[in-house]
């Protein structure tokens, strides 16, 4: 199995044993969802308008909690040094870490979405089958840049705050696309096709960019 697969399996096994990232993330997302539900008490029609924005903002912040933990285990015993000394390519480490985060955030979304549906008694008027596509493309857009900037923020002073500062400006088009696509599907007023194409383009551009540039970030001391 490829090196990326081996590293991914290792990360999933470690996460399964300690579960520290997934627990903190789940609880954080639950808090965000509940707080949003308190602060807004929309009628059915209004809830469809704003639910898209609320869901994705909640998932964005929960994802940042997970992304900040991406390299925590590697930093604890400087395991990255062992990786950098070995002939293993930087990209397989990056892909493994990004896929790991991708799985974590998807699990979070799968658990949290029913809550949103309950709190806002949502029913999609538009083609609901497109929602998973938007979720997959959107989550990868956040996670690929997030993993990259988490590695970059290791080399800065205030690591936890640095990740969102680097991630959010660059993710604005993706976040806008996710929110607009979800809202258009929920309200059924217009088609989400453009946003899905934009998300796919975003994923393509930034996955390539991150793969080409990750080596520089990993080997910056």
């Amino acid at each position, binding site marked *: 199995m490829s*090196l990326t697969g081996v590293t991914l399996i*290792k990360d999933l096994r470690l996460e399964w044993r300690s579960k520290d990232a997934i627990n903190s993330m789940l609880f954080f997302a639950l808090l965000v969802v509940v707080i949003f539900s308190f602060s807004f008490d929309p009628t059915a029609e209004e809830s469809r308008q704003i639910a898209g924005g609320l869901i994705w903002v909640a998932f964005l912040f929960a994802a940042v909690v997970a992304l900040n933990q991406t390299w925590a285990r590697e930093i604890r015993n400087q*395991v990255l*040094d062992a990786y950098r000394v*070995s002939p293993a390519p930087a990209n397989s480490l990056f892909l493994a870490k990004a896929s790991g985060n991708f799985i974590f955030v998807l699990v979070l979304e799968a658990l949290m979405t029913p809550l949103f549906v309950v709190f806002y008694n949502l029913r999609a008027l538009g083609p609901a089958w497109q929602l998973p596509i938007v979720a997959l493309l959107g989550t990868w857009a956040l996670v690929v840049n997030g993993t990259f900037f988490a590695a970059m923020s290791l080399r800065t002073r205030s690591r936890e705050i640095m990740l969102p500062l680097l991630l959010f400006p660059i993710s604005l088009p993706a976040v806008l696309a996710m929110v607009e696509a979800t809202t258009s599907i929920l309200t059924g007023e217009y088609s989400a096709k453009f946003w899905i194409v934009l998300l796919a383009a975003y994923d393509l551009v930034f996955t390539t960019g991150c793969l080409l540039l990750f080596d520089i970030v990993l080997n910056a001391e």
Partner: protein
Amino acid sequence: MNATPIAPATTPIITVTDLVKQFGRFAALRGVSATFNAGQMYAILGDNGAGKTTLLRTLAGLNRPTRGSITMLGSNNLRAVCRQVGYMAHPSLLYDEMTGMENLHYFARLYDITDDQRCASVITAVGLDPDLARPVGQYSQGMRQRMSLARALLNDPQILLLDEPFSNVDLRSAREMVLLLGKMRDNGKTIFVVTHQAFLLEGAANEFVWMEEGKIVSRTSHYSPTPGEKP
């Protein structure tokens, strides 16, 4: 351990020419020039801040030199020869939540080594039990040092860069480790040991390299508690 092609004893395996490393304004290495021969064990001594660890990390390719150059195994691109380098640092470089064997399985894959026998043999070589089920996080400091050494030996490298391998290790096992390193040196490996317990290496190390304030101040074949005369 299968014998990889070992360069003959006296040919230089590593040449360092006026290596300078500055972290911002602090000069960790102030111009180190030296040649190291294959199949030798070098003890690198000096008090804290002398630049021992920085020199080792620069040889391992983890720190980029501010000035100067390093030629290793005939190439000045350290990345090209990294298969022949084993590096052990003060932190364990292992995952605390995984057992020793699981750790080595993973790191072996980084060197495309897939047979488990290699991992087991390296663990027994450092005097640990391969089937130990406890995660590394619950090892004693001495056991963790040994497992960390095992990880550095995994790819049977020609060059070993060891940072404080004996710290927190009891005297008896430290002596065993020195014997092990001596045997490997006799098999042709080139070993660098950064340590504060240089007396352990007396009779084992071929050269004692003293460093002070980022420079090599003396290289003697016998251990003396203070830097000897100029080389």
